[in-house]
């Protein structure tokens, strides 16, 4: 906590000189000032930008597993871009004191080189953030790593995406565009492991929160992800393929009892188009659990078919609403139940989810109210994410919100997190 206060002091000091040196400051808005303010290629060297942020989050009720702090970030982000001889180099790095885990952390979020191989082919190599697919907080064909701990603790949405160490080739053709991403060493999700949040473990038969986290067997194999896409008259079509591993360690080694990432292959497709006053999207994916294609091994996740329908529309001026209907169909469900050591805790054959998002912006576009809700009719559980964001000016931003979990039973996906309801506040200074 003392470190956090120290960082808060630093944030204040940091902000003071930056305001004075703002080259756009004052009332210098006449012709004589033109040259000073324009950020042209020739006049500026590599520009370093970034932000300093303090985030505090607390549990809303006491938990037998953790103390109250769910978010205690003092973070400094530095980013720069440099163009040299046809290659764009991008660096984004975070330094962080995480008071919830009582440790200093450094994270390079981007360290990449982007260049053109031919007129139709681009390459981007190195650490990078990758996203595709049409779901809103639901991922059917996006197997790039996610950081669920950040997502549930109230960090900025940006942190839901963890970086990949990968090479991405993009081909742009008249008939089709292709992206091929090769990740030489498997990048897992930052799943809920117990350091920050408690969760249900069927092998333990209860909610647990191992303080040192779950130590999954690391997987050294590679991953391939492919997307083919095209936009025709405003209709976006895409097909996806993935060859790799389950992103969360859902399989359990029957000898050592340690969780690991089992083999996974997925094929899918999506469409997104304007419909009526709004936007419609649909996406499907077939996840084949290659290590247990018959679905008889209870220590390995079954194959799944996933489907999503979504619609978004501006309801009234500056208020946008969206709805998503989502299905996870567990294949070979009968066999799974028959062989499972804990059939009472197995997922239902069909897990259904409804999500809604409401976003309102004020007239001057500096206040955003948003409410994202997950509700599962099949599990009778849910998750609510209200948030208020205020942009005071180009430097200061404030965000506050909550992560709330509802349950009927403690072993369902959202229900297991019910000890972790939290509220957070973040203050960011951009420079």
């Amino acid at each position: 906590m003392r470190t956090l206060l120290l960082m808060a002091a630093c944030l204040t000091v940091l902000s003071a000189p930056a305001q004075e040196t703002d080259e756009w400051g004052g009332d210098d808005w006449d012709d004589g000032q033109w040259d000073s303010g324009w950020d042209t290629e020739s006049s500026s060297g590599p520009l370093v930008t970034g932000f300093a942020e303090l985030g505090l989050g607390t549990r809303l009720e006491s938990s037998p597993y953790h103390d109250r702090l769910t978010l205690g970030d003092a973070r400094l982000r530095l980013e720069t871009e440099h163009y040299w001889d046809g290659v764009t180099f991008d660096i984004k790095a975070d330094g962080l004191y995480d008071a919830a885990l009582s440790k200093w952390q450094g994270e390079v979020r981007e360290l990449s080189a982007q260049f053109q191989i031919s007129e139709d082919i681009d390459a981007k190599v190195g650490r990078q953030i990758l996203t595709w697919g049409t779901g809103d907080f639901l991922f059917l064909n996006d197997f790039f790593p996610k950081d669920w701990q950040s997502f549930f603790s109230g960090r900025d949405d940006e942190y839901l995406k963890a970086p990949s160490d990968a090479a991405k080739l993009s081909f742009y053709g008249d008939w089709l565009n292709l992206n091929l991403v090769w990740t030489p060493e498997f990048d897992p999700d930052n799943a809920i492991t117990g350091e920050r949040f408690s969760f249900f473990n069927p092998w333990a038969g209860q909610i647990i929160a191992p303080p040192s986290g779950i130590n999954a067997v690391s997987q050294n194999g590679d991953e391939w992800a492919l997307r083919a896409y095209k936009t025709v008259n405003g209709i976006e079509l895409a097909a996806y393929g993935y060859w790799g591993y389950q992103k969360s360690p859902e399989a359990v080694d029957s000898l050592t009892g340690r969780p690991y990432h089992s083999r996974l292959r997925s094929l899918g497709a999506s469409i997104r188009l304007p419909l009526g006053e709004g936007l419609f999207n649909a996406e499907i994916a077939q996840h084949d659990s290659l290590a247990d294609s018959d679905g008889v091994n209870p220590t390995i996740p079954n194959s799944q078919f996933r489907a999503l329908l979504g619609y978004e529309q501006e309801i009234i001026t500056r208020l946008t609403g969206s709805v998503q209907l989502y299905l996870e169909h567990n294949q070979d469900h009968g066999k799974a139940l028959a062989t499972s050591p804990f059939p009472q805790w197995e997922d239902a054959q069909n897990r259904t989810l409804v999500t809604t998002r409401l976003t309102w912006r004020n007239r001057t576009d500096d206040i955003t109210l948003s409410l994202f809700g997950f509700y599962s009719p099949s599990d009778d559980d849910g998750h609510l994410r209200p948030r208020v964001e205020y942009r005071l000016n180009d430097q200061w931003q404030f965000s506050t919100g909550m992560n709330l979990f509802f349950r009927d039973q403690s072993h369902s996906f959202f229900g297991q997190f019910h000890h972790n309801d939290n509220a957070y506040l973040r203050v960011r200074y951009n420079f």
Partner: protein
Amino acid sequence: MKPLLMILPLLLTTAAVAQQTPEPKAIIEQAELASYYAGDDGRSAARMLITDAQGRKQMRQFIILRKDREDGGAQDMMVFFSRPSDVRGTVFRVVKHDDRDDDRWLYLPGLDLVKRISAGDKRTSFVGSHFFYEDVSGRNPDLDTFRLLEETDDHYRLEGSPKKPEDVEFTRYEVTIAKDSMLPVKIEFFDGKEQPYRRVEALETDTIDGHPTVTHSRVQDLRNGGETQMQFRFISYDLGLPDDIFSERSLRNPPREWLNLRDD
């Protein structure tokens, strides 16, 4: 002798037309072409100074690339933001249609997310400024009816009334169009009480590559206070922008050779 005689009536007709005031709709359509369709394509750097009712200031800086699919019709546009730092790398892409809602996408670099934006009210703030989306991409003249209020030696003043008043926040507006450039130099929007509450003005214009161009404009919120000034620089037209740079490729990998700021 004979050809000259044939031309003579043509000249007379043209002269007669020039003295006659064009139809209000024709004036507006000419103004739309002059404001939003100069050349076959165009590039400009732009920056905004946003001053709110409390006097607090914010800045935006971006580069706009634009290419017309047809004059007065469909158009591709991309806006690449460079400042402030929290929107650096954000790209806004629009395909403007005259027969249906525009297609809009926003690229968020932090998430590598190409977010599609549903068609919405275009009379809402563009990136936190007092400019509306519609001020940036142009209001379709078919949405309003027009009548001429005044004609002087150097300008027309017209009144626009919305065909669907329930879709907009104004009851009518008055637009002053300079005759020499056919650019709208002042637009005032009126509310139900006949009060002007919003003013859009061209503060400076210049002729660039033969096209009269607004280089400095301002929107004032006359009701709540506050204004946004927008300045343009490094403007050029008819660059020969390739069609394929208006695509998802340019969201993730901006077309550097076309974004290099320089005075041509």
